[in-house]
């Protein structure tokens, strides 16, 4: 069915303008270089292919995170959220993780999800840090509200950043949110936020040329750590 643009004009929320996230490159523990950059709506179908297998991984809450992320990306693609941004990590063009988030108000960010495709390289930690960097440094927000759906997330975000507990209900199910303030961000930045800018042209070109999705079994194996069976 063709999209009825007249109806869409009614259904689509007004979009808030957002500053772009400048790409950066991070050297990982294995020496590989991960490009972190912002993607657009046009990239969503590719992202969904990568997220889809996680819907069926009943481990470490991957299914919960995956299903919610899937729906958020889909809603973004079809203009059903006021605003959203998505940053991805790529090694040699291969998508290894993504984070999404949105501006709740001009001053408050609402952190949504973090999904790392490869485990053991702290890709999730790097991408979460990039998300906070975007909220605070490029979007200029005063605070970011955060909840964790998994123990790994809780340990990484709430404990490592020393987030403040609040009673503010988070968009993700109304759980009391934790808050990253500008002060906390800048206090934590030296030990949690890294990356070099600008990204060398040749590296950025590889990343922008294609978002390569590894095949499903590889993703499952890498995410779920199914080695040994």
């Amino acid at each position, binding site marked *: 069915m063709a999209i009825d643009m007249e109806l869409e004009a009614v259904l689509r929320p007004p979009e808030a303008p957002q500053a772009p996230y400048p790409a950066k490159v*991070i*050297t*990982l*523990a*294995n*020496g*590989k270089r991960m490009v972190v950059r912002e993607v657009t709506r046009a990239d969503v179908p590719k992202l969904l292919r990568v997220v889809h297998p996680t819907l069926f991984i009943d*481990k470490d809450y991957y299914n919960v995170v995956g299903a919610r992320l899937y729906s958020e990306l889909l809603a973004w693609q079809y203009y059903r959220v006021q605003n959203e941004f998505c940053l991805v990590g790529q090694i040699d063009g291969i998508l290894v993780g993504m984070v999404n988030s949105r501006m709740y108000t001009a001053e408050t960010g609402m952190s949504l999800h973090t999904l790392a495709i490869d485990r*053991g*390289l*702290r890709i999730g*930690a*790097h991408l979460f*840090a990039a998300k906070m960097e975007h909220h605070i440094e490029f979007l200029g927000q005063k605070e970011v509200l955060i909840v964790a759906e998994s*123990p*790994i997330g809780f*340990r990484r975000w709430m404990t490592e950043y020393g987030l403040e507990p609040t009673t503010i209900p988070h968009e993700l199910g109304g759980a009391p949110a934790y808050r990253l303030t500008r002060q906390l961000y800048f206090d934590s930045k*030296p*030990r*949690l*936020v*890294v*990356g070099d800018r600008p990204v060398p042209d040749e590296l950025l070109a590889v990343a922008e040329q294609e978002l390569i999705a590894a095949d499903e079994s590889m993703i499952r194996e890498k995410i779920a*750590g199914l*080695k*040994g*069976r």
Partner: protein
Amino acid sequence: MRDVAIIGVGMIPFGRRDQDSLIDMLAYASMKALDDAHLGDKAVDAVYVANMGGGILQHQTGIASALVDRLSLLPAAADLVENGPASGASAIKNGVQAIASGYSDVVLVAGGEKMREVTGWRATDFVATLTHPESEYPYGITLPGMAGMFTRLYMEQHGLTAEALVAVAIKNQEMGALNPYAHVEMMITKEGIFDSPHSVVNNPLVADPLRLYDACPVSDGAAAVLMCPLEMARELTEKQPVVVAGFGQATDTHTLQERDDPTDLKAVRLAAQQAFDRAKLKPSDVDVAELHDAFTVLEIAESEHVGFFGKGEGSKAALAGLTRFGGKIPINVSGGLKARGHPVGATGVAQVVEITWQLRHELPKERQVKNAKVGLTVNFGGFGNNVLAFVLRRAS
């Protein structure tokens, strides 16, 4: 006293094994060891099971009885041996003593641990129950914390450097990547974990000055060995026997604070010395060693305490590549605890399995120490308060 031979070994890949129960893992490794020996219908007399945390982590006790039933080895004697992270070597020692004394002929030792079923917080707390319940545990001290204090002192007093620790981490992860049984397959680089300014996130402090890549992972896994008197080995199996030439065990104070010199791993020193004396061999006779590198610093410190290097020389040896595969004394060619993983009850058994493969010359050439005849293992319990060493020899 009879000489004791290892006639069968088995291991399952270490890692995160959500699908398997603790007993499943112990049973799989045991069957591999039994099959490895092609034992036929010769009955196993006794089973020793090494496990530290079944009671806490799985809420399961009577683990040896459960395993011997699962394996249908009834009515073999069955006992659980718990000696913290040195449970594996302790269980093997019990098996060796049973055979040497003549009480048993064919003994199966299986070691296993299932640690990934709980969160990291719980696993850390579980291991910390090794510490003194009154004077250590309440403070939140962890085993990485103990190792952190030890490392700082070793740096201050014995010339240990962060670069030497990095060299051990890279070496062991390189070797682990070649070991199909290893939990960690990933290679790391000095740039990524040390030189690059990004390493502050890649390799964060765990217990200052130790960092993430100085520590072993938390793993599930199991390993098993089958032993009999050397004189029976040739008739029971066609496998190349490996002789338990000597073992040693020593203890030290429960708390680190009561040691006159906390950088002296007295129990390691004494256990290794006993093992060499019983084997009538010396450190320079060893072709390959598996040392308990729960933290990179321990590989270096143990390499000094067992007599491979003088005190303060272990760092230099690690940096010079003397402990690499192909070096003067290859250490942790398996990847060690650092890369193979450290399912605590399994570790001491896995070390003996690895050395058995080395002495049988069964490994692929990229990690087979050429013509290896003598191997050493060190299994380190608590923070060095209960340590076992084995000297193993290829039977002539």
